[in-house]
C-alpha cells in the first residue's frame, strides 16, 4: 500500500532541512506532501484532524529543535498542541502513531530523509487510516 502523508514544515528549520536533503540528493519515499508554514506554532490541531478526515494516513509536523525556534518558542506551542491532539486521536480510536512531531534543523538533511523514511514505513505497517476518504 502507498500511504498518503501530509508533512507540515516550518519555513526556517525543517523546510530548509528538506531543501538540504534535496541538494544532497538523499532518497526518501515520495509519499510526503509538504505544506509550508512560517512556524510549527502555526499548525492548528484542526488542520491535523482535517487532513486525517480527508484521507491522510499520517500527519507529520516538523519544526526547529526546542530552544532553537526562529520565533523563540513557537515550537513549544506546537509540542503542546500535538500532545493534546495525540490524546484526542486516542479518544477517537485513531492510532496516535499516525501523528508525529519531529524537530529537524536546517542542517539536518539526512535526518529529514531518515525521519520521513521511517514515518512512511511505520504508516505502511499501520495500513490505511480507518477514516480514509470518509468525505
Amino acid at each position, binding site marked *: 500500500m502507498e500511504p*498518503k502523508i*501530509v508533512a507540515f514544515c516550518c519555513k526556517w528549520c525543517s*523546510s*530548509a532541512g*528538506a*531543501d*538540504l*536533503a*534535496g*541538494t544532497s*540528493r*538523499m*532518497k*526518501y519515499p*515520495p509519499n510526503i*506532501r*509538504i*505544506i509550508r*508554514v*512560517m*512556524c510549527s*506554532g*502555526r*499548525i*492548528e*490541531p484542526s*488542520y491535523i484532524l*482535517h*487532513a486525517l*478526515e*480527508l*484521507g*491522510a494516513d499520517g500527519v507529520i509536523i516538523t519544526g526547529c529543535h526546542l530552544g532553537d525556534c*526562529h*520565533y*523563540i*518558542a*513557537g515550537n513549544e*506551542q506546537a509540542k503542546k*498542541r500535538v500532545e493534546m491532539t495525540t490524546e484526542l486521536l486516542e479518544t477517537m480510536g485513531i492510532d496516535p502513531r499516525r501523528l508525529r512531531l519531529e524537530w529537524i534543523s536546517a542542517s539536518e538533511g539526512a535526518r529529514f*530523509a531518515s525521519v520521513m523514511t521511517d514515518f512512511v514505513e511505520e504508516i505502511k505497517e499501520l495500513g490505511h487510516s480507518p477514516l480514509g*476518504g470518509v*468525505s
Partner: protein
Amino acid sequence: MEQTEPRIGVFVCHCGVNIGGFVDVPDVVRYVKTLPNVVHADRNLYTCADDGLAAIRDAIKERDLNRVIVASCTPRTHAPLFKRTCEEAGLNKYLFEFVNIREHCSWVHMKEPEKATEKAKMLIAMGVAKAALLEPQEEERVPVEPKALVLGGGVAGMTAALSLANQGFETYLVEKEDKLGGFVRNLDTLYQTGKDALESITPLIDKVTANKNIHILTSSTLKDVEGYIGNYEVTMAGNGGETVAKVGAIIVATGAEEYKPAGLYGYGEYENVVTLKEFERMEKEKTLPATKSVAFIQCAGARGQVLEYCSRICCTNAIKSAMKLVGTEAPETLPEAGRVGRRRRRKAVASAPPEVEVTIFNRGITTYGVEHELMYNNARGMGIRFVKYTPENPPEVSREGDRLVISYHNETLKTDQTMSPDLIVLSTPLVQIPEAEELSKMLKVPLGRDKFFFEAHVKLRPLDFATDGIYLCGTAHAPVFIDEAIYQAYGAASRASIPLANGYVQAEAITAVVDEERCIGCGSCVDICPYHAIELSEKEVILEEITLATRKSSVNPAVCKGCGTCVVTCPVGAITQRNFTTPQITAAIKVFGGVPVSLGVS
C-alpha cells in the same frame, strides 16, 4: 477581500535536467491546465533566466493573470526574484506562490520518476488551491527616530556610541559608574602593548566626552523601555533625575564582571589568595607584596568546576601578568612572521633564570591565534612553569604556619608534589552582571544558558537580538578581548545604523491581524506572543442603547514577525495571519484529500 475571479498562471521549470530529467514536465503542464482557475500554464528550461522572467511578465499582461505560481526550486533561492518580476508587471508580490518541486521532489525521488511526477502534480495543485485565495498585501512602513541608546560606558559601549555619533546620530550613553571606562579601569596594563590600561583608553574617553552628538549619563541606569524598533521610549535615571528620550535603536554593551570563587582554593579564607582582577588592581595601585614565588591557577570555577564555559581570555591575561612578574614586558611590537617568533624564543631561553618564580597550573592553555600562541611560547622561554592538572585532580591549597601550600599531581611527571608560593592568583571566568536579569526583562531580550545576553543567531546574526532594533557587543555577550569588543562594537553600531539611516523600517506583510468584532479580549494572544507585539486596550462597544466597556487586542505590525502562533491560540478564531490564512492552508489540505474545492469568489 479580492473580488475578481482568480486567474492563475503556473510556470513549471525544467531547471535544465534537475527537474526535467526526473519529472515529466510536459505531462505536469497538461495536468495543471485542467486545474480550476488556472488560465495559463507553461514550462521553461530555466524560469529564473531572463527569458523565463520575461515569459512571466508577458503572461501577466497578455493573459490578465492575477495570481502567479512558479514550480521550481526552493523559495530560499529565487522567491525575491520572482516576486520582483510580478511587481514589475504590476502584480502585488503577495499574489505570488512558490512550489518546490526540485529539493522537495525531483532531487529526492530520482529513482522513481513516475511517482516524482505524480508528487509534483499534487504539490502544484495544492499551491494552486492556496494561490486562488491569496490576497494582495501592503507592507507597513514605520518611521524611525534617528537616535540611539547605548547601555554601558566601557570600551565596547564607548566605541559603539562614538561610531554612531560620528555618523551623525544623536546617542545617549548610559554608564552605571561615575566614570566612563568600564572593566578596563580595574586593569594595570593591557596585553599586547603592555601599556597602562587607563592611559590606553583615555583617548577614546576624550573623544566620546568631546563629541556633541553623545549625551553621557554617568551614575545612571535604564529605568524603563516602551515601544519597538524605530520608536523606543526610554527612561534613564541618575543623579540628575530622570531623562526620557525617544530612540530608534538600542545597543547593549553592559559588560561583565569577574567571578568570585568563594570556597575554591582557599579564596576568602587565606590571605594572599586573590583573583586575576584583584591582582591587576594590586599591581595598578602598587600594593602587591614582595614575592619570590607566585602561582596562577587557571579555570578556577570554570569549565565544569562551577560554571560550564571557558572564559577564553584568562590564559592570555594570566600569562601577560606572569611575564610582567618575571620582569620582562610582553613584546612591545608584534613580530611580523612566525620565524621572528622562533628567534625571539631561542633568545629568551638563553636568558638568566627569573627572579620571581611563576607557576601556571592549567588544564591546557587557550592561547589561540598567532599573537597569543607566540606569547605563550615566549613565556615558556622565559622560564615560567606550566603545570598541567586534570579536572578530576585539581591542585589543593592549604596553609602550614604562615605559608601557603599547593599540593598537586604533576600530570607530566605522574608524581605528587608540593610548592609554597607567596601569592596565589585564581584565573576566574567573566560572568554576567547581576543587573542583566532585570535588563533582559525590560528590553525583552533573552539571556542564554550561561546568563550572557543571547544573540539572534549564533553564526549568522551574532550582534543582533531576535527583537528588532536591539543589538549587542562586548562582554555582555561573552568574554572577549578589548580588540574583539571593539570590532563587535563597530559591527553593532553598523547594524543599528541601518534603520537609523533608512529612516523607516518595512515589515513583511505576513503579520497577524485581529478582527475586533470577534475578539473577546481574553488576552491569550498577548500572553503567547514571543515578541510582545499584541496589546489589549479598552474599547467601548455600543449595543443598541447600552455602551459596554470591553477589551480588544490589536497587533503592532512593526513588531509582529508573522509566526502565527497567536492565530492558533485565539479561542474564537479572531486572528488571521496574512498570507497564511486558515482557508488558504485548508484549501491545500482539501486538494491533498482529493476534495473538489470551489475556488471561485468567496
